[in-house]
């Protein structure tokens, strides 16, 4: 089973199309203006999905079985509280007899059926959208309501449970309505043969052998560990790192993901296999904190003067070396990077030159995004690593899978709130 960018791009379009249809139907049913956004598309393994469900939060899901062009399961998952909020927001006004009590300990029959109805509308909206994009037919079973705090209720009864290594897609999405935004996850876990057949149809290039996707995880982990280590050494601030999963996004979506505020950042271009761009973005407060930590004497500068700028650049430079060395180790290659470019400007404006440059040759990008945090002090750093897609595909194909297994990992994968 092989993946390529065209196939992944099709999944992205499927997600958008599906979200549009789901929103339209929710609006129609509830008469409440609703938008459904898909923020990210993640590729996961069965074991990662299980980890998502074993985080001790109460979740509810609406699951349907798919047959036809895609065989497997589609599942819309809410945190329990959010499911209630959705139902309350969307249905409370439209039907006064549906009296939904958010504080209720148990889901009563009414609530359960309301959640199932909303979940089913979303599932079938998404799936019809996918079928449109694929110009095919996908049949949907009657919905099942599932709740629980472990993976068992969600996967236990499924005849084709995603195995440890099976590919699944996670669409991180949200519903926006009446001034609130409620996040949910939408999982697709297709049968392996069905997915393989679909990917074969969608693929237009050689593609990446699916088993090599482990290389992505290792790159993300190694890069992040190195960044946290160097940051701590240089600033004396204890940092920890959270890796968001590898994302596959349309280039345009990247600047939109960056905080809509003035940020301080350091940008690099890197060259090797792969080549690409690397950005570290700090909010202003964190940047000041870092300057204070790195520059021993009292600095009397307005904003970020010479001292502040060079401190941030130095930190960025060392973090970049660590990050790219982490990658190079996994890929058994060398990756060089440019001198740092300092920016203190609107966050999106710092990112768009990079996506423009890549946009000449590609429509989508793999983004390794990672957040470095410090306990008790301001040190929030977003790391965006955006490799050239052809290079990345080649680099991963050159990867010796047996070697990956020998490279143990210590970093924790965690899902972050997408604020």
């Amino acid at each position, binding site marked *: 089973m092989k993946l390529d960018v065209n196939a992944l791009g099709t999944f992205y379009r499927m997600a*958008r199309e599906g*979200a*549009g*249809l789901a*929103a*339209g139907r929710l*609006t129609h049913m509830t008469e409440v*203006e*609703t*938008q*459904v*956004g*898909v*923020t990210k598309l993640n590729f996961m393994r069965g074991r990662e999905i299980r980890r998502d469900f074993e985080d001790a939060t109460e979740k509810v899901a609406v699951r349907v079985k798919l047959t036809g062009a895609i065989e497997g399961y589609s599942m819309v998952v809410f945190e329990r509280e959010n499911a209630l909020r959705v139902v309350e927001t969307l249905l409370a006004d439209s039907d006064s007899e549906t009296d939904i009590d958010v504080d209720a300990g148990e889901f009563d029959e009414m609530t359960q059926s309301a959640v199932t109805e909303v979940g089913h509308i979303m599932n079938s909206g998404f799936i019809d959208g996918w079928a449109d994009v694929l110009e095919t037919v996908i049949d949907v079973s009657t919905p099942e309501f599932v709740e629980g705090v472990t993976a068992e209720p969600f996967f236990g009864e499924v005849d084709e449970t995603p195995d440890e290594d099976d590919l699944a897609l996670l669409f991180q999405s*949200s519903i*926006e309505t009446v001034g609130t935004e409620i996040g949910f996850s939408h999982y697709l876990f297709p049968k392996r043969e069905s997915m393989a057949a679909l990917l074969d149809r969608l693929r237009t290039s050689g593609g990446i052998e699916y088993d090599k996707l482990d290389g992505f995880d290792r790159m993300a982990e190694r890069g992040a560990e190195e960044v946290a280590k160097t940051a701590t050494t240089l600033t004396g601030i204890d940092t920890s790192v959270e890796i968001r999963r590898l994302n596959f996004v349309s*280039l*345009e*979506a990247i*600047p*939109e*993901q*960056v905080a*809509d505020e*003035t940020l301080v950042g350091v*940008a690099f*271009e890197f060259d090797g296999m792969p*080549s690409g*761009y690397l950005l570290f973005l700090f909010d202003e407060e964190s940047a000041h904190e870092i300057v204070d930590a790195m520059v021993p004497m009292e600095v009397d500068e307005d904003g970020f003067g010479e001292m502040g700028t060079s401190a941030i650049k130095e930190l960025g430079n060392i973090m970049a070396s660590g990050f790219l060395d982490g990658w190079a180790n996994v890929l058994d290659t060398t990756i060089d990077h*440019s001198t740092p*470019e300092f*920016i*203190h*400007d*609107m*966050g*999106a*404006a*710092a*990112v*768009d*030159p*990079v*996506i*423009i*440059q890549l*946009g*000449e040759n590609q*429509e989508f990008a793999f983004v390794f995004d990672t957040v470095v945090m410090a306990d008790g002090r301001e040190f929030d750093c977003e790391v965006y690593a955006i490799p050239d897609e052809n290079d990345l595909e080649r680099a991963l194909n050159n990867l010796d899978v047996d070697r990956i297994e020998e490279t143990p990992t210590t970093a924790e994968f965690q899902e972050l709130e*997408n604020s």
Partner: protein
Amino acid sequence: MKTYGSEPGAPTPVQVGISELVVSEGDDTLKSYGLGSCLAIALYDPESDIGGLAHVMLPDGDAADNSDRKPGKYADTAIRALLRRMVEQGASYTTVESKIAGGSDMFEFESFGDGVGQRNIVAAKAELEKLGVPLVAEDVGGEYGRTVEFTPGTGSLVVKTADERAENGVTEL
């Protein structure tokens, strides 16, 4: 975050994201946030109060095979799409004027060549000239980001930089 809804009626100002273009009229405001090397292209017809804003990312759509699907992504195809949609809504081709903002070059990377922002400015100007649409004002280039807000009815294009108190903090074109 980008959302995909099915119904119009989005709140004002309407956000014009990267590669998008929106045509509107009167006092509606169209806004593009955080332009770096991207370019905002505003077209308006003072006679009919119809205008539109595009937030383009690349110069040359004619050379790209997806410009039919995403005309707003490229300077040349975005200008043509804006004009066409405005005329469809009642604007008169001959009285349309234009303003542009953005196209900074934030970084001096080797891979960027002459500058990614500069390429967008050159392409937009060339297409406007080809179509005979006068460019009446511009705030382009430099090494800083911009947020723009456009009102089709007045043709006003307000350009803000990150530090609004600075000398070039807010400019109205």
